[in-house]
């Protein structure tokens, strides 16, 4: 049985803050019950950064110069929407509700890390439900660009797990 202590609380809060940043969330609230009259309630909030890019306008060149310099019209980004990793073409999503594990068992190296080159069919992680360990294979060969879940946390059906490009 783990003893509830200050150091563990600090580590836990730090992990939450990282989780917040990693998943681009703005708020996270968790209550952990360690026993009777012994619980920890944490709420981590991030000030939503203004993500809207300032509209960039290209003033017409005052004088026509060499035609070779005519710039292609700059792609005008609409109001920047917060990126949804599930919509990313390289997203690997969860086929089930369960708990995600990044390593085969506690204390062993993770199946893959960011930057790893994977082959099609290689196990990326495990999603557990009802004591069934479902191995998630890489749908294609590529490089692991992002890992969007942390070890031992719940995932929903369709949750983005990783980005592989």
């Amino acid at each position: 049985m783990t003893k509830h202590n200050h150091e563990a609380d600090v580590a836990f809060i730090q992990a939450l803050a990282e989780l917040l940043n990693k998943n681009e969330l703005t708020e996270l609230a968790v209550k952990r019950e360690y026993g009777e009259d012994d619980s920890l309630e944490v709420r981590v909030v991030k000030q939503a950064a203004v993500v809207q890019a300032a509209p960039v306008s290209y003033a017409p060149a005052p004088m026509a110069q060499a035609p070779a310099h005519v710039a292609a019209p700059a792609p005008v980004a609409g109001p920047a929407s917060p990126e949804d990793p599930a919509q990313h073409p390289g997203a690997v999503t969860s086929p089930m509700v369960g708990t995600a594990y990044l390593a085969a068992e506690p204390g062993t190296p993770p199946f893959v890390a960011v930057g790893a080159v994977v082959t099609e069919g290689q196990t990326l992680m495990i999603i557990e439900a009802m004591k069934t360990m479902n191995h998630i294979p890489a749908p294609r060969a590529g490089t692991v660009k992002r890992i969007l879940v942390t070890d031992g946390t719940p995932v929903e059906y369709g949750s983005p797990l990783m980005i592989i490009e």
Partner: protein
Amino acid sequence: MSADWPEGVGRVILAETDTTLAEAARRAALGEGPCWILAGFQTAGRGRRGRPWVSPRGNFHATLLMRPKGGPSEAALRSFVAALALRDALVRLTGLSQAFALKWPNDLLLNGGKVSGILLESLGSQGGVDHLAVGIGVNLIAAPSPDQVEPGAVPPVSVLGETGVRIAPEALLDAVAPAFAAQEAALAQGGFAPIRAAWLAHAARLGEAITARTGTTTRHGIFDTIDPSGALVLRTPTGLETIPAADIHF
């Protein structure tokens, strides 16, 4: 092979292997299955999240390799199919029925002690599963001592120690294979509903206080039911919580 061995299912008996789950994965990669694989002895028996599983000769260590239709959530329902099949088989072989109960999701309890462990592994494949391996360990003649398991875990027991009945591993295999096939047929015909109802009828601690530990949290509540996906439903002071994966403590 017994007369009621399921048709089309292989029966592989090994003197020794690392784990029958690993053997099933190797055979799946070669395109084999469905088959039951029984090992007399496992050199690297393991439970959930890498916990060691003590696998002496005389105990039961077997895996069913199957290729189910449907997605991984449906594959996971075999957790309950396997627990019910094992219960049916052991009730038949011991003649005792009241002594056995089920602990979510798939532990079989004998006189309140843990007599078996069931661990399933599936390999995903474009929305479906390539294969599913249902690993079953049963303490037929010997159980680890309580200090070999995690603190707070249900104390381990053996069939022999609790009932005086000595069952040979192959005899249990010949009972559990047809029992699994029967429960699987019920799943194919009626979906999860009949499996769920049968499981709930034998569930331990239903309506009582339990603790669910996941990788990152611990939750206390009343064991309310299991939902249509098999997830545990816990009644807590803040409402009902649905839990698809956890270690349950009484």
